[in-house]
């Protein structure tokens, strides 16, 4: 039976809450996806898990896209700044993306593009108008 990614996400979070071994939970979850032939949806499900987990924790999920993995100091810095902007606790999810340099921050549906690629695209847009 096929299920929506949000349902899987909720199921996974609930399973993690129990005191069971996380490796066993992960293995069982993967078997379930294979059985339902939905293992291709894993990326979507994990994205939903992040969102749902952040909600459950009363925090706001912030996705930070960068050319290479940010270090802890950089993540902490971003976390503090986003928390100051939103007035909420923040969970940072660092995602690797080819943007040459800089960062792209997504808070809910708000995008702050400070990447080199984004800046060039903005410049191109200005030139077009």
């Amino acid at each position, binding site marked *: 039976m096929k299920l929506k990614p949000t349902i899987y996400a909720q199921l996974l979070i609930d399973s993690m809450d129990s005191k069971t071994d996380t490796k066993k939970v992960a293995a069982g979850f993967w078997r379930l996806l294979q059985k339902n032939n939905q293992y291709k949806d894993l990326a979507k499900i994990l994205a939903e898990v992040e969102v749902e987990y952040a909600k459950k924790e009363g925090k706001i999920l912030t996705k930070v896209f*960068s*050319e*290479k993995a*940010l270090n802890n100091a*950089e993540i902490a*810095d*971003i976390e503090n*700044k*986003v928390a100051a902007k939103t007035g909420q606790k923040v969970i940072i999810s660092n995602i690797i993306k080819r943007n*040459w*340099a*800089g*960062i792209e*921050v997504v808070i809910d549906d708000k995008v*702050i593009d*400070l*990447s*080199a*690629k984004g800046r*060039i*695209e903005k*410049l*191109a*847009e200005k*030139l*077009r*108008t």
Partner: protein
Amino acid sequence: MEVLGIDVKLIIAQIVNFAILFFLLSKLLYKPITGLLEDRQTKIDKGLKDAEKAAKDRSGAEIEAEKIAEKAYKDANEILKNAKSEATAEAAAIIKKASEQADRIMANAKSEATLSKEKALKDAKTEISDVVVIALSKIVGDELTEEQKNKLTSKAIMEL
């Protein structure tokens, strides 16, 4: 009477003769001639009356003909005047329509020219921006060192 040499008998005979002659003339000559003359007079009178009537009629006909001719002239004038007026109005309408059409064509041409100019400008801008993007992408994507990339990332975090 005989003394006077008058023959009474002869006179009576002459009177009788005269009476007979008068009677006969009256019956056979006078009345037909009188009737003939009366007929002739009647005919002449009738002819005169007819001629007079004909003259009158002809005069009336001439007046009527004049009236008709005058009316026809007036009507023709009126028609001509109306036709002229209509022709003038029609000519004015044609000129107006032609002028409007010319204005429309000019406006369309201007609009097309403006659109064409705008499109050319937009195309040029797009082309320039594409060139800039390609050039900058090439420089930033391929030419930046790790150190420069790290600096840009740190700067971005500071700007947040």
